[in-house]
């Protein structure tokens, strides 16, 4: 209920932040918006001796288009920065569309894109749409930097492949052929509820044929999951309602939901089937929404 005592650093550069993380190792925890870290600390699930805040790193707040690279979203961009971004509204409205479905306004004003990724809860609402749009992340560490497909970042519930001294600095949405994308979340109330299941779909449609599709499911596996069999099944086929329903069934077979107090695994599979079908249809008909 009360925060334990800790030492607090708010460095002015990424390099310094990585240095501190490297120096304190397992004793340190990176903090961005604090909507997960502080709650975990109050609930005694986390007791870092050192908090390294990246709140002074202004350059990580940008949302911009870099020709040849794509749309670059800084890891410190808040969910509401996505919601109200004119650039995203123009290029990929499906990203603000997903961000808007997260938590409450208060959390969206504080929580950040990078935090949502590294917290790595299976029900996170941003990763599915970002993965559907083939996002990569740029990671900076004490010993150098690297880039990675976002979907490869997650290793399990609450775990990622990041080393303790590594920080995600940007998420990059590459230029692409996808003609539509959307994220559909099913929570048990209209706001402030975790996804019981969610499906993001991105499609490349030409002349009524599905040239390519990416389907990403949330809250139905240990990490955000691609429904690859469903994707393969769709490729090159003429789009019909039956086809999409069949893709939904395949996605439902691929997902790995669990029973918990929010919903049963059986029901979650049903939701995946329904929302795969619906999100594909929406992306096909309405573009990036």
């Amino acid at each position: 209920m009360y925060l334990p005592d800790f030492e607090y650093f708010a460095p002015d550069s990424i390099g310094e932040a990585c240095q501190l993380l490297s120096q304190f190792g397992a004793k340190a925890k990176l903090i961005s918006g604090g909507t997960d870290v502080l709650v975990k600390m109050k609930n005694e699930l986390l007791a870092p001796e050192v908090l390294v805040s990246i709140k002074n790193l202004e350059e990580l707040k940008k949302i911009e288009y870099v020709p040849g690279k794509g749309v670059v979203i800084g890891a410190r961009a808040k969910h509401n920065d996505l919601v109200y971004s004119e650039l995203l509204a123009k290029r990929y409205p499906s990203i603000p569309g997903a961000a808007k479905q997260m938590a409450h306004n208060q959390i969206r004003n504080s929580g950040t894109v990078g935090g949502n990724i590294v917290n790595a809860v299976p029900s996170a609402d941003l990763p599915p749409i970002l993965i559907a749009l083939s996002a990569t992340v740029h990671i900076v560490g004490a010993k150098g930097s690297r880039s990675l497909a976002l979907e490869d970042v997650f290793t399990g519930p609450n775990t990622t492949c990041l080393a303790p001294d590594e920080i995600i600095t940007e998420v990059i949405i590459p230029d692409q052929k996808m003609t539509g994308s959307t994220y559909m979340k099913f929570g048990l109330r209209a706001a402030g509820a975790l996804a019981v299941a969610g499906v993001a779909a991105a499609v490349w449609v030409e002349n009524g044929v599905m040239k390519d599709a990416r389907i990403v499911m949330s809250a139905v596996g240990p990490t955000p999951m691609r429904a690859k069999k469903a994707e393969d099944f769709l490729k090159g086929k003429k789009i019909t309602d039956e086809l999409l329903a069949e893709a939904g069934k395949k996605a439902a077979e691929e997902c790995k939901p669990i029973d918990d107090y929010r919903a049963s695994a059986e029901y979650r599979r049903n939701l995946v089937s329904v929302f795969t079908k619906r999100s594909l249809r929406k992306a096909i008909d309405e573009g990036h929404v």
Partner: protein
Amino acid sequence: MSIKHQMSIEGNDLRLDFDKEYTQIGKSVPRIDGVEKATGAGKYAGDLKFPNMLYGKILYSPHAHAKILSIDTSEAEKIPGVKAVLTSKDVPDMKYGISPARWDENIFCIDKARYVGDKIAGVACIDEETCYKAMKAIKVEYEVLPTVLDYRHAMDEGMPLVHDNYPRNINTEIHQDFGDVEQAFKDAYHVREDVFTGTRAYQNPIERHSNVCIWKDDKLTIYPSSQSPHYFQYYVAREFGLKMGQVRIVLPLIGGGFGGKLEPSGLEFVGSVLSKVTGRPVMMSYDRLEMFQHNRGRHQGTYRIKTGVDKNGKILGCHTYFLLDGGAYTGLGIATAYYSGALLPLTYEFDNYKFDGYRIATNLPACGAHRGHGAPQPKYAFESHLDNIAKDLGIDPLDIRLINARKPNTTTVNGFGIQSCELTACLDRIAELSDWREKKKKGLPQGRGIGIATGSFVSGAGYPIYRNDWPSASCMIRVNEDGTSATLYSMSADLGQGSSTILCQMAAEAMGYKYENMKIVCGDTETAPLDFGAYASRQTLFSGWAAKRAGEKIKKDILETAAFMMGLPNEDMDLDCVDGVIFSKSRPKVKVTTFEEAAARYFKLKGPLVGTGVYTVHRTGGYHKGAPVGTSPAYSFGVQAAEMEVDEETGKLTCLNFWDVHDCGQVINPTLVKGQIHGALYMGIGESIFEQVQFDDKGKIVNGSMGGYLMPTALDMPSNVINETVESYEPVAPWGVKECGEGSTNPTMGAFRNAIADAVGANVTSLPLNPEHVWRAIQEKKAKDKK
């Protein structure tokens, strides 16, 4: 009664135009506490601060059922800032509760803990953070015992006992039999039996349970978040062997109770002893999870109902069999168990009724009174059952309710006298508002349905909770010296429902005074006379009578003084005082005077102008066992209808339109009535669709937080809510009033369930009606249709 005359007095600035019968009531005046609440200036218990105040917490059991082998507090006592540590050895061992028939709780567990959250030890420290450290340092050795977590199997052979004196874990057993149900079933054209199951819901008021206790010398003062200062005073005095006069309860502002803050929370007992041993004020509180653990929310139950009807759907007889999960202690649960069956015959007339009820003890948090006390879930079951019967017979759900609807001036099969009852008018009106007939004739689009349900509730309980012969309510009004204000002293409790506002409206009306000049001191046992507080929807009628009578006494004194001042005889009720102006009815040219002037004169001549009022309920109810529960001077009636859209693939529900038509007697403040109805709908939607306290297999709550326990948000409310009241006047009530706060909760779950059944033809038989339950019912129906 009527004051419909115009006065136009020459040479007088006062032009009075009495268009309305009343000048202070029947109006949506601003809340008396509105500004301080809206600006945050008002103080709730948790905001209070006293010099040298300590903070206290209660250490709770992490096990649902465990013997306490030893408690070692020595490490905790060494922590700097820890001022006191208490265990069961340091406090009285007298059992308490609130229903005197089953006092079964101790301040701290003596032999064993009976649920996760049961009270083990108490600490007082210089701040709350230190309390948490101290609690961690208390070493308790437990022997974990087998648990009773499923109330449906708690009575089975060989199950462990939660309390040794409740054999087979039966906390209460009720058997009531009126008329001849078996014969009614034989005479019936159609007999149907259904079983429905409910769920545990928690009131979850926005304000946490808190209090400050100050025990100095031989006087104990407590500032609690409570619905009843009197019961707190009585139970605290009893526990510590004090006289009532040695205990003072003062209510700060209260941020919601809904039944959960009626009984002692344990915080007041522990806080009192901590204050006594430290000699300092102690602030106690539950955090959100501890609130869920303390609970006293809705009992979940299994509701089996069998009803026989004639060809037209007229109910001939009904047999109910209810099994309720009571949790670890009794609290108010005995009343809940009786209410669950007793209130069912209110809305429909039938002559044969049998009720068998069992309240079961389990190793889960204790359940209690939760808005609509005992009635809402049985009502959900009965209203669902009635729709099933209507479907069997091919009768419109509206018609089966019209055929059976309670009429005014009748007596229920279990002996409750009903005077005013406009249920038929409510049904007719809701049919118009919802376009019911047309929608039934033309049918609604696929996946959409409309459902209806009725409800009723007591306007105050006919008998107090512990046996006593005190009047039911009393109050005092003191007109302040220069007559520019008057203070109502009442031991009522304004939990947010607005009772302080309407009691001041009623007092002002009776005095002939102005609401805006009224002040109120409510909930202070040392300044206000006895009133049992806010529960069973009693204050508008009960406390209202006291306010009206106190006001009338003031008016009598005022008019006597005014007669003297105006040089007129005060005979034949010639003088009257309305809206602060005193005038002669027969001599309109006589210069008027004001309440203010007459009151100031009164004080100069005779001293303080004080009026008192008292109300005692007339003898109500029958003579059978449990007859007092459900008695009331008057009953509210209401009907709700819901139009729902069901997503058949996911079971997701959207309530498109919601209608509520209510008979709550004469309305004192229309905005507050609307607030009650909207609030009840909010809670009703929550309990219908979203809310469910859930446990792991060890009896530990898994969703005891605002994020885990899903209460609806503004976005989950229906976009279109229409509520109306019908013309009604209750003869035994002041100005014909009745309740509307709890009765409005009763129809909601049934209306939703019936709308879902209408939309998709699926019979959802268990609460909450959440998407997964609805989806499963649809799957079952599809499987059945295939066969």
